[in-house]
């Protein structure tokens, strides 16, 4: 395992790869800070850029944006009470009171350092789990894959935010969009309304529309009255005292464990992990009254949790090729567009890529820690950029990015269509993220399902007689029961009140 990790390090430490690792985490931190731009938007925007890079550097760049944004998100939470990312919502609860009582420097440092430790725990678990997971995954045949994809899609719609049935419908819509174009097995054209659609809908169009255009439409004329505080942080105010540092050891350990667990589960991710970590910390604290008033353990635990989760989220993505959430789906999509099929063969066939990406997380977390506090003045300056100065640039980047991908005007128009769709959907409480997940996983599901039926003569019981597949079916069944039960319960509570 150490050998493979060192191989990975040797890949990352090449100057031309390292620069992309740096770019990735830097952009990630930047967009985490910027209000109104999230990791998924930034990754969609940079998707076309990755066609000019090789697969390893693309992955390192895009992944860096993802976990880098977790660091940046806490800065806006602490200084402005504005969560930059969904996973830093709870960071506001303790971070903002700290900033108001003139301890912003301390809060930023604790957030950054807990993030770093959480990230490191997450990477370590990823390294430890990679080989065993791949060994299991290599035993997977078509039935297991089909069931795994179904489990992942169910988990994403049952556990995520919002109504389960709406999310599930959006997963189905995503699968439907993924069907457009020539059938992979028979070449039969499906839903090809115009000749340009013969190759299918482009992931770039869908992602940029759903997450780029729709957000611009929503936010363009909204002005958040944001006044970034004039910060004068002295270096000696930044570090916690010995007693404070000691009080953070267990919260960070608990937060990292919770984060690592929820990150690796399909369907859950950094946001849920940070909420759970905060709730657990509050429950187990001897002084629950201190929470909400700038209590450092309540800041450290969720910060370590969301960063641990954003690293262990790569376990299913890299070893099984099945992404757990929409960001991972985009990263997998980038890999597929680069001509690489994700899955358990990835580690065996492309060890440089596999371990290089993992080692880049290790290096990236160190870079993030180093650029976080020293560049704090830059991040505060960025907080003052109004969205109105940002979005026209985003619009042009979307247009040029989509157009340059396949030199297709149709793709640009489709992006607008998906943008309007994403905007309207969200107005009616349909989340766009499951659409993307369904779009990326749909073809995988269809291919493996049809292959299973072909191999086993149309016998559905095969899903129950093969052990791993049976376990996956059981998990899916449990998820459905939990989903129905919790939504009925929620309605009963709503009806009673």
């Amino acid at each position, binding site marked *: 395992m150490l050998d493979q990790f060192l191989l990975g390090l040797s890949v990352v430490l090449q100057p031309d790869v390292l620069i992309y690792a740096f770019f990735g985490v830097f952009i990630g931190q930047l967009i985490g800070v910027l209000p109104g731009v999230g990791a998924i938007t930034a990754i969609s925007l940079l998707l076309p850029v990755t066609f000019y890079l090789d697969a390893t550097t693309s992955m390192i760049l895009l992944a860096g944006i993802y976990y880098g944004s977790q660091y940046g998100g806490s800065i806006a939470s602490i200084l402005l009470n504005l969560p930059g990312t969904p996973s830093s919502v709870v960071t506001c609860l303790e971070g903002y009171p700290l900033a108001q009582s003139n301890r912003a420097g301390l809060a930023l440092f604790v957030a950054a350092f807990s993030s770093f430790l959480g990230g490191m725990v997450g990477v370590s678990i990823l390294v430890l789990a990679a080989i065993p997971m791949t060994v299991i995954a290599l035993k997977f045949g078509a039935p297991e894959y089909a069931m795994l994809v179904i489990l992942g899609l169910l988990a994403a719609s049952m556990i995520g935010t919002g109504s389960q049935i709406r999310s599930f419908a959006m997963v*189905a819509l995503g699968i*439907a969009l993924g069907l457009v174009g020539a059938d992979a097995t028979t070449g*039969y054209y499906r*839903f090809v309304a115009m000749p340009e659609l013969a190759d299918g809908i482009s992931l770039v169009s869908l992602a940029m529309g759903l997450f780029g255009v729709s957000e611009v439409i929503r936010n363009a004329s909204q002005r958040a009255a944001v006044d970034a505080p004039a910060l004068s942080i002295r270096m000696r105010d930044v570090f916690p005292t010995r007693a404070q540092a000691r009080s953070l050891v267990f919260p960070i350990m608990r937060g990292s464990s919770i984060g690592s667990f929820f990150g690796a589960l399909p369907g859950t991710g950094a946001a849920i992990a940070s909420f759970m970590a905060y709730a657990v910390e509050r429950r187990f604290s001897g002084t629950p009254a201190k929470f909400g008033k700038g209590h450092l353990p309540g800041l450290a635990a969720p910060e370590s949790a969301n960063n641990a989760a954003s690293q262990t989220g790569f376990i299913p993505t890299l070893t099984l090729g099945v992404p757990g959430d929409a960001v991972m789906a985009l990263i997998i999509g980038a890999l597929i567009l680069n001509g690489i099929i994700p899955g358990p063969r990835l580690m065996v066939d492309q060890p440089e890529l596999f371990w290089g990406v993992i080692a880049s997380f290790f290096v990236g977390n160190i870079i993030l820690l180093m650029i976080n506090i020293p560049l704090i003045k830059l991040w505060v300056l960025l907080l003052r950029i109004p969205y*109105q100065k940002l979005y*026209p640039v985003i619009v042009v980047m979307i*247009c040029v990015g989509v157009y340059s991908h396949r030199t297709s005007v149709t793709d640009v128009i489709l992006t607008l269509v998906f943008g*309007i769709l994403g905007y309207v959907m969200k*107005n009616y409480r349909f989340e766009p993220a499951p659409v993307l997940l369904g779009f990326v996983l749909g073809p995988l599901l269809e291919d493996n399902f049809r292959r299973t039926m072909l191999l086993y003569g149309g016998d559905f019981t095969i899903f129950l007689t093969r052990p791993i597949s049976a376990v996956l079916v059981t998990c899916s069944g449990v998820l459905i029961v939990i989903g129905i039960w919790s939504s009925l319960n929620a309605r009963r509570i*709503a009806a009673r009140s």
Partner: protein
Amino acid sequence: MANTENHADQNMASRAASGGVLLLAGLVMLFFAWGYPTGTLNQMGAGFIPQAIAILISGLAVAIIVIDLKAPEPERAGPVHWRGLIFISAAVIIFAVLVDVAGLVPSMFLAVAVSMFADHQARPVPVLIYTLLATFFGWLLFLVGLELPIPAFWR
């Protein structure tokens, strides 16, 4: 109570609207997928999965309509950002129409300029200055830096 009754009728339609659109999408999909070869279970045709998914979407849409109608409190759709919708759409369409004909620089210029008016506080002079700057840096990034194979101006 009487108040709720009065609102009930006009609410019915708007409550069922989002699920209704989804149901329509599912049925349209089913209509087209019906003609595709279904095949048999052990030799599935190209139409099997599309038909299954179309039926799934329609079924879920019906369930969503039922849930939305039975919900004690109608959840209101958010406000529509017409300004953003109109100007951003116009900017993207202008870009799409012009980029093949007029080249990257003019289409970027117009896309930025038009999209800036999605903000209701936009004023002509700052928009012009910002647009010129943005177009210049866009040219620098896309054509000089990334060397994208798109002509800068009309051929």
